């Protein structure tokens, strides 16, 4: 078969491509992950639907009950979550950890938003592409990032 000149032996130029991708990954990580530092404000979840802010709340507000958001034919349910609460507390101590938001349920086919799990830090987001819904955390973590909470 006649193909254009090709090589299956990795060389230094391939290493340059790999280094360029790594540099881009690190650069973008610094730009998008490094900018969400403590702002002094309480951690706030912002819900954006179709590019417009639809709701804004503290993760603790979800203790009163999950919130449901719809766009088009897709619906998702945002619920409260506590990172670290998975380990069973001893002597009936209240579970402690980082408070955050997770998508407990969604009717979209991909379920990526549900699989994203719990987000607890400023700058993190849960994206529902089919429904064009974003839940994004803003502001610094309340109480230095670790809060105690009693669930249930």
């Amino acid at each position, binding site marked *: 078969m006649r193909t254009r000149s090709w090589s299956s032996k990795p*060389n230094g130029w391939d290493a340059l491509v790999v280094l360029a991708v790594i540099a881009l990954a690190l650069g973008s990580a610094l730009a998008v992950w490094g900018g969400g530092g403590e702002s002094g404000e309480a951690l706030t979840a912002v819900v954006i639907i179709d590019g417009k802010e639809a709701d804004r709340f503290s993760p603790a507000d979800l203790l009163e009950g999950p919130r449901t958001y719809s766009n088009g034919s897709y619906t998702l349910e945002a619920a409260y979550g506590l990172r670290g609460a998975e380990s069973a507390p001893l002597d009936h101590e209240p579970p402690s950890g980082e408070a955050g938001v997770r998508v407990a349920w969604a009717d979209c086919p991909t379920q990526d938003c549900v699989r994203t799990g719990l987000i607890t830090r400023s700058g993190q987001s849960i994206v529902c592409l089919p429904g064009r819904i974003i839940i994004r955390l803003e502001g610094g973590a309340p109480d230095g990032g670790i809060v105690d909470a009693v669930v249930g």
Partner: protein
Amino acid sequence: MRLTTKQLTLCAVLTALALALSYLENLFPLALAIPIPGVKLGLANIVTVFALYALGAFQALMILFARCLLGGMFAGNMNALLFSLLGGAAAMLAMIGLVRLGRCSVYGVSIGGAAAHNCGQIAAAVLTLGSTAPLYYLPVLLAVSLAAGALTGLAAACLFQALDHTNLRIS
């Protein structure tokens, strides 16, 4: 550009193969391990890399557009069309540039294409959602593209090696 019947038929077969690989990919949902929208192995890129080397940029581009259009129609989702078009066009531009450079092996070309594909898809997500929130996923997607690009590069290299031992004349 005028295509011979043989070239046109080969383009159609490769388009069908790319669509089949896209479907096959759903059996290995990488998103279960890395829960990020759009994360996948990019098996259809094996066809793009092969077409780029064996048939040239024009025919590879035609196969890519046909795959994106048919894939979007099958999915019944115009959003999916925008994602695959932007991702595919970015990947193709990067790979054409790297092939024309003539220095990289098929691995470098494939990794560069995979990284550009993810950048294109993030751009599509930013345009679709009207928010820069999807940029949050870019570092992870770029890291995944290193492994996914190397894998598709390996598959393409094996394909070239196997075909070099045949008398098959494609172009």
